[in-house]
C-alpha cells in the first residue's frame, strides 16, 4: 500500500556497498538526509499553514510588521551551528578516504590510466614492483611512461577494461589520464576521483565481497564517454593469486618470445602475489 | 521631456556617471589581469626552469624604453587634463600630442620586439613562458591601442572650430590610461626582470 513511499526514501536507492569505508559515507548521507527531512517538514508545514491561514479574506487586514531582530539573530545562529557541526562531523571521513597521509599501508598497488574510451591497468608483475615512470617517456606505445631502463618495469603487465583485485586487502590505485579528464568511479565502493593527465592521484579502497562490479567514467571525456565502462572482479585471495600467476606467466612468455629464448617460468611464479597475512609483496 | 521634470539631476554621489562607470570597469579590468597573473604565478612556480630560460630571450633595453614611454605618457596625460580644465587649449594640445607620440612609440618598440621573436621562431606555442609573454603583452598592447583611439579623436577635435572642452571625458580617459600604465609596471618586472643576471642581451 505504501509502495510509493520508497520514492521519498533516498537512502534506499544506494547500490550495494562492498567497501570498508562505504558504510560510513552512506551513514553521513543518511544523517544529512534525516536533518533535511526534518527541516523540510518544518518549513513546508509553516509555508502551507501560512498560505492557507493568511489568504485574503474580506475585512481582514495584514499586519504592518517589519521584523524582529531577535528572531533574525536566532535563525542566523542556529543554522550556523547546525551546518558547522555537520561540516566538522563529516570531515574525518573525508580525510580518511582522500587525504594521502591517511592512506593505510597498501597490500596491492596498481596503476590505472583513463583514456578515450576505456580504462587501462598496470600490475607490478612477477617482482611485485611497479617500474619507474616519468612523463618524458610517455608515448602512444607506452602510455604509462614507464622508464625502459628500469628492470622492475620489464615484467609489469598491462590489461584493459577488466580489472582483478583481491578482497579484504588495502588496494592503492595510482590514477592518471592519458588524454583528457576522466573520473574513476566505483559505485559499489563509493570511490570517485578525477583522473588528471599529467599527474598521479592516489586512491585507496578495500573491498569486502567477491563478485563482478562495474567501473564507470564520471567526467565528460568525449563523445563515447557513456561507453567508458570497465569491470572490476573482486576475488578471494587464492583466486586472485591464481589469476595473477597466469598473468605473470603469460607476460614472461611474451618477454621470452621477444628475446627468442624459452621462459624460466618456474622461478617467477614461485612467490604468491599477495600473502594471506597481508604483507606488502609489491606494495611500493 | 520638455516638461519640467527633475529626473536628470546631478549624480547623487557627486562623481560623474562616466567616471563611475570607468572606475567599475577598471575594477573589472583588475580582475581580468589578476586571472593572468594568478595563472602566471602558479605556472611559473611549476616551470621555473622554462621561465628562467625564456627570460633570457627578452630584450630588457627595449622594455625599459617602453617603460619610460608609458610613464612619460601618464605624466603628460595628467598635465593635459590639468590644462584643459584651465581652458588652456594650446598646452592641452601639446601634452596630449606627447601622450599620443609616447603611446605610438610604445607600439613601435613592441612591433620590433615581436618581429624579433617571430624571426627566431619564438612563438606562443614555443613554451609556456612565451605563451604568457605574448598573451600578457599582447592584451596590454591591445589596451594601449584602445587608449590611443579616443586620444587621437580628442586631439584632432581640439583643432576644429568647435574645439574640445569636455575635460571630464579626458579625465575618464586619463583614469584608463593610468591603469594601462600600471599594468605595464607589473608586467615589466614579472616577465623581464624576475631573474636578475639571467640576461645575455636577448633578441
Amino acid at each position, binding site marked *: 500500500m505504501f509502495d510509493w513511499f520508497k520514492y521519498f526514501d533516498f537512502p534506499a536507492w544506494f547500490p550495494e556497498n562492498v567497501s570498508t569505508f562505504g558504510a560510513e*559515507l552512506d551513514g553521513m548521507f543518511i544523517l544529512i538526509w534525516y536533518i533535511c527531512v526534518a527541516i523540510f517538514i518544518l518549513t513546508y508545514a509553516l509555508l502551507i499553514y501560512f498560505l492557507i491561514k493568511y489568504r485574503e479574506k474580506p475585512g481582514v487586514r495584514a499586519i504592518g510588521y517589519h521584523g*524582529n531582530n531577535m528572531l533574525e539573530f536566532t535563525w542566523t545562529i542556529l543554522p550556523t551551528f547546525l551546518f558547522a557541526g555537520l561540516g566538522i562531523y563529516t570531515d574525518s571521513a573525508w580525510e580518511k578516504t582522500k587525504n594521502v597521509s591517511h592512506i593505510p599501508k597498501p597490500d596491492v598497488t596498481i596503476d590505472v590510466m583513463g583514456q578515450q574510451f576505456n580504462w587501462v591497468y598496470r600490475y607490478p608483475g612477477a617482482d611485485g614492483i611497479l617500474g619507474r615512470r616519468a612523463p618524458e617517456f610517455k608515448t602512444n606505445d607506452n602510455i604509462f611512461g614507464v622508464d625502459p631502463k628500469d628492470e622492475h618495469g620489464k615484467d609489469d603487465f598491462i590489461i584493459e577494461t577488466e580489472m582483478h583485485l583481491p578482497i579484504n586487502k588495502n588496494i592503492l590505485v595510482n590514477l592518471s589520464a592519458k588524454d583528457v579528464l576522466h573520473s574513476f568511479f566505483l559505485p559499489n565502493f563509493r570511490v570517485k576521483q578525477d583522473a588528471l593527465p599529467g599527474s598521479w592521484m592516489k586512491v585507496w579502497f578495500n573491498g569486502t565481497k567477491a563478485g563482478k562490479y562495474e567501473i564507470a567514467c564520471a567526467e565528460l571525456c568525449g563523445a563515447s564517454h557513456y561507453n567508458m565502462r570497465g569491470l572490476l572482479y573482486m576475488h578471494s585471495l587464492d583466486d586472485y593469486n591464481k589469476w595473477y600467476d597466469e598473468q605473470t606467466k603469460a607476460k614472461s612468455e611474451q618477454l621470452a618470445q621477444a628475446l627468442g629464448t624459452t621462459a624460466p617460468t618456474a622461478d617467477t611464479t614461485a612467490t604468491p602475489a599477495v600473502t594471506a597475512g597481508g604483507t606488502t609483496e609489491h606494495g611500493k | 521631456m520638455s516638461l*519640467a521634470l527633475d*529626473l536628470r539631476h546631478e549624480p547623487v554621489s557627486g562623481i560623474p556617471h562616466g567616471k563611475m562607470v570607468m572606475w567599475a570597469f577598471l575594477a*573589472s579590468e583588475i580582475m581580468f589581469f589578476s586571472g593572468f597573473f594568478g595563472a602566471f604565478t602558479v605556472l611559473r612556480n611549476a616551470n621555473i626552469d622554462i621561465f628562467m630560460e625564456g627570460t633570457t630571450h627578452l630584450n630588457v633595453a627595449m622594455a625599459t624604453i617602453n617603460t619610460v614611454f608609458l610613464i612619460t605618457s601618464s605624466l603628460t596625460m595628467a598635465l593635459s587634463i590639468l590644462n584643459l580644465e584651465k581652458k588652456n587649449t594650446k598646452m592641452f594640445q601639446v601634452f596630449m600630442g606627447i601622450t599620443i607620440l609616447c603611446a605610438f612609440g610604445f607600439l613601435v618598440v613592441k612591433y620590433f620586439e615581436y618581429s624579433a621573436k617571430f624571426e627566431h621562431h619564438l612563438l606562443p606555442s614555443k613554451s609556456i613562458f612565451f605563451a604568457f609573454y605574448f598573451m600578457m603583452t599582447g592584451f596590454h598592447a591591445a589596451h594601449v591601442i584602445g587608449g590611443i583611439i579616443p586620444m587621437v579623436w580628442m586631439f584632432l577635435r581640439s583643432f576644429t572650430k568647435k574645439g574640445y572642452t569636455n575635460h571630464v571625458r579626458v579625465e575618464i580617459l586619463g583614469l584608463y590610461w593610468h591603469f594601462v600604465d600600471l599594468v605595464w609596471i607589473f608586467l615589466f618586472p614579472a616577465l623581464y626582470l624576475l631573474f636578475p643576471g639571467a640576461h645575455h642581451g636577448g633578441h
Partner: protein
Amino acid sequence: MEAIASAHEAHHDHGDSHAHDHHSLSFVRKYIFSNDHKVIAKQFMTTTLFFFMVGGLAALLVRWQIAFPGEPVPFLGSLLPEAWGGSTGAIQPGFYSQLMTMHGAIMLFLVIIPMVNGMIGNFCIPLMIGTDDMALPTLNMFSFWLNIPAAMLLMGGFVLESGMATAGWTAYPPLSAIQGAGQTMWIVGLFLVGFASIMGGINYIATVLNKRAKGMSMFRMPMTIWALFITAVLITLGTPVLASALVMLFFDNFLHTSFFIPTNLLATSALDGTNHWSGGGQPLLFQHLFWFYSHPAVYIMILPSMGVVSDVMATFARKPIFGYKAMIFAIMGIGFLGFIVWGHHMFQSGMSPLLGTTFVLSTIVIAVPSAIKIFNWLGTLWGGSIRYTAAMMCAVAFVSMFIIGGLSGIFMASAAVDIYIHDTYFIVAHFHYVLFGASIFGVFSAIYYWFPKMYGKMLNEGWGRMHVIWSFIFFNLTFFPMHIIGVGGHMRRIADPTVYDFLKPFQGMNAFITWSAIGLGFTQFILLFNIIWNLNYGKKAPRNPWRSNTLEWAAPPHPGHGNFDTDITVYRGPYEYSHENRESDYWPQWVPPTEEEIEAEKLNPSHAH
C-alpha cells in the same frame, strides 16, 4: 506644479504613446538600436524567450536519448543530418554531447543571466529608483547588441560539419582544448557574452549609485534593486576572471599554447590534427579560474530573482518584507562569500584534500544567509493577507523549490558525502531546483508582475495561474526523480545509461522523467500564448494594478522615453503596506504625507525606515 499638471494632461491626451517626444527618432533608433532602457529590456525578453525555447528543445532531445537510447526522435529525427541522426534519426553520441553542451551554455549564458540581469535589471533599475534612464544609455544598448554576435558564435558550430562545442558548459580542458572549430567559436562567443555582461554590470552600478531620485536613500531601495546592485558587483568582479580563463583556453585551443596542457599529452587537436603542445600547464588551473567566476555566477543567476520574489511577496501579502535590512545583509553576505567557495565544485577534481576541508567550511558559512532569506520570506507571509495572483504563485513556487534546492545542496557541501554523489544526477537535480525551480520561477514572477508596466496591457490571470500550476507539477515530476537515480549512481552527461548494468533498473524512471520534461516544455507555450495574445488583445493596464508601493508604479503604464510624467520624490521605504496609521493598505513611496499623517506618526511612531 503647473508644469506637472500639464504633464498629466499631455499624458491623458496622447494615451501611452508620448508621441510628442519621439518625432525626431527614426524607427531604427526607436525600436532597434534604441537607448531606452525599457526597449532594451523588451529586446532582452524577446531574445531570451527565444533562446529559452532553443535550450529547451536541446534538453528534450537530450532527455529523449537518455530515456530511449538509440530510438529515432519522433518528428525531428528525419530532419537530422546523417552525422547527427545516423541512418534512423536516432541521436548519435557525438550529437548528444553537442546538445548537452548547448543546453547548458544556452540556458545559463543566453537565458538565465540575460533574463535576470538584462531583462529585469534594465526594466526595473531606472523605474524603481525614479530616474529617466541608465547612467550611460548608449553603453547599455551595446551590452544588448553584443549578445547577438556572441550568441551566433556560441552556437556557430551548428553550420559546421564538425559540429558545435561538445565539452560541456564547463568546457574543462584538455577536452575543450583539443576540440575543433565549434569549440573555438564557442569560447570566443562566451568571451563576448561575458563582455556584454560586464558592460551591463558596470552601468547598473553607476546607475544605482548616481541616479536615485530625491529622497531615495540606499536603504529605501526595493529588494529587487539591492539584489541587482549586488549582482552587478558580482558580474563586474567575477566575469573578467572567466574572461581571462577563456582567453587562455582559446590560446591553447587555437594557438597551441599550453596553459592547461600538461607535458606529453597523448592527444591530437581536432582543429588541425597535430600534437604541438609544449606542455608544462595544469588542467586544474582552468577549473579554479572557471569556478572562481562560475560560483558567483550561481548568485548572479539567483539573486535578482530573490529580489523580485521579495517585492512580489510584500505586494501580494500586503505586508512589509520581514527583516528588510537582514535581507540586504544576507544578499551582501552571499555576494562576498560567493567568491571564496568555488572549490566545492572541485572536491573530486584532484585538488588537495586539505583545500577541500577549507572549502567545506566556507561553503557551510554561505548556507546561512540563504537560510536567513527563507525564514524571512516565511515571516513575510505570516500575518499577511495573501492574494494569489500568478505572480504571487510564482513567488511561492520559488520559495518552496528553493528550500528543496537548498537542502539538497547540503549533501554536496560535505566533501565526504560529495564523493559518491559528485557528477551524478543528484547534482543535476540540485541545480535544476535552484536554477529552474527558483531562478526561472522568479523570472516568471517578474513577467507576470511587471508586464502591465512593460507593455501597458494586463496578462490573463487565469492562464497565468494554469501556467504556474502545471509548470510546478511537471517541474517536480521531472526533477524530483533525478535525486533518486542520482543516489542510484546515475552519472551526468552519459548518452546511454543502459551500457551499465547497475543503471538498467532506472530506465523506467528515466522514461518517466522524459515524459514529464516534455510536459514541462509544452506548458511554457501557455506563457508564450498569454504574452502574444495579450500584447494585441489584452485589457489596458491601469497605472498601479497591484496597488504597489514602489516607484515604477508612479509612471504611466507603458511609459515613454523619460519614464515619469511627474517629478519624483521619495518619502519612505518601499514596504509600507498595511501601515497602522493609515486607512489604505499601501503607502506608495512617492506620495507626500498629509499633515494628519505627519501628526499621527509623531503620536504613534511605527518602525518605518
